[in-house]
């Protein structure tokens, strides 16, 4: 039960921050998501995002910041094994599920559905 509460609170708080970015700072959704994904990479680099994931579980892995963190972790993991070139070759290792699913399900949606307007 506690897991759910933490996931709810942390996930909700991150989304609340996103809402402030959109309503107060008047950022578009695309700009907001872009800023958050970059923030995820930075927080990952500082070692803080993984701590948030340990604490909040899906509350930290569901927001788009997690995507940035995973991109960074992929780069670092590969660099540890193969040196600096690993930064290029490893970036998409961990985020593969997210990107593949989005492309595949997005394409399938275009096959099946028409826009409703």
């Amino acid at each position, binding site marked *: 039960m506690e897991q759910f509460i933490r996931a709810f609170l942390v996930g909700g708080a991150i989304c609340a921050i996103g809402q402030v970015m959109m309503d107060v700072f008047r950022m578009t*959704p695309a700009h907001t998501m872009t800023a958050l994904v970059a923030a995820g990479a930075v927080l990952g680099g500082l070692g803080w995002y993984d701590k948030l994931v340990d604490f909040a579980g899906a509350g930290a892995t569901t927001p788009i910041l997690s995507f940035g963190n995973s991109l960074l972790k992929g780069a670092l993991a590969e660099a540890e094994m193969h040196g600096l070139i690993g930064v290029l070759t490893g970036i998409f290792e961990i985020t593969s599920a997210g990107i593949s699913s989005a492309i595949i399900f997005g394409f399938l949606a275009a096959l099946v559905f*028409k*826009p*409703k*307007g």
Partner: protein
Amino acid sequence: MLLGRQSWLFDNSPRIIAAAAVGGPFESKCQIAEDFDQFTSDLWMEQDSFEKAEVKLLELACAKALEKAGLKNDDINFLLSGDLDNQITSSSFAARGLHIPYLGIFSACSTSMESLALASKIVDNNGANYVMAATASHNAAAEKQFRYPTEYGAQKPPTAQWTVTGAGAVILGKQGNGPRIISATIGKVVDMGISDPFNMGAAMAPAAVDTIETHLNELNVEPDYYDLIATGDLGFTGYSIVQDLFRKKGICLKKNLYVDCGTIIYGKDPKVFSGASGCACSAIVTYGHFLNRMRRGELKRILVAATGALLSPMSYQQKESIPGIAHAVSIEYIQ
């Protein structure tokens, strides 16, 4: 003849022979639904894209106007038309089907009055027997082009507006007992630095004020010379701004004298946020609702100042602000 710098007084008062207004399914439930000639049952009109459906809407409005006028395509000398699609393809493809010599024009949502003004000038100068002026807009096509894919989950702010799915067409001639076009004022582009495509009302309001004020000066009339002064699609937001700007100039526009077509169509429906917009907005309200009111004797002289936001998706990305324009036409029907 020319009055002042940018107004025309039509010496021969071109007559409105017939006018038609058509709408989409959402419009069939709107506040002025009985002023439409026809509604389509869905946004697709059996086409495979929204853009192609918009062509059909425009063709439908033109066909209805011809039917009501008792005229054939061959009788019309010129078709003046414009819309919001890139390169005004809706108008061009409709003209392809109508086989009428075609003058494509663009001034965003003020196309209705720009086309009416130019059409009037052509007829007034004996340049034609019959001229048709038309315009259309389609909600989904406009969202897709100017903002986001229609199924995208971006939260719209309260200043956003709803593009009307519809088309309006009018046929002008030299004689007849219908309403007469008396004068027109061509607007200048006015840009007050508003750059939010979700707040068109604020972007266009200064142009509306500029054109209406110029019109009143150059025609040398007071606002209450008219029974109604209408702006095109400023919505509730832009409407308040226009009242505020006129108040600042010491001109009082009473609430029942000054209206905005964008607030008339749907009223305060939450789905449309700040009100209706799109080329069809001012066309439908003028050619449907206002002309009906004139025929019932409720209005004798009206001034319609259609407003347009002259941005493109690229200009916005290049950090340009949104320039506005407004063209005004006065119509009179004294029976």
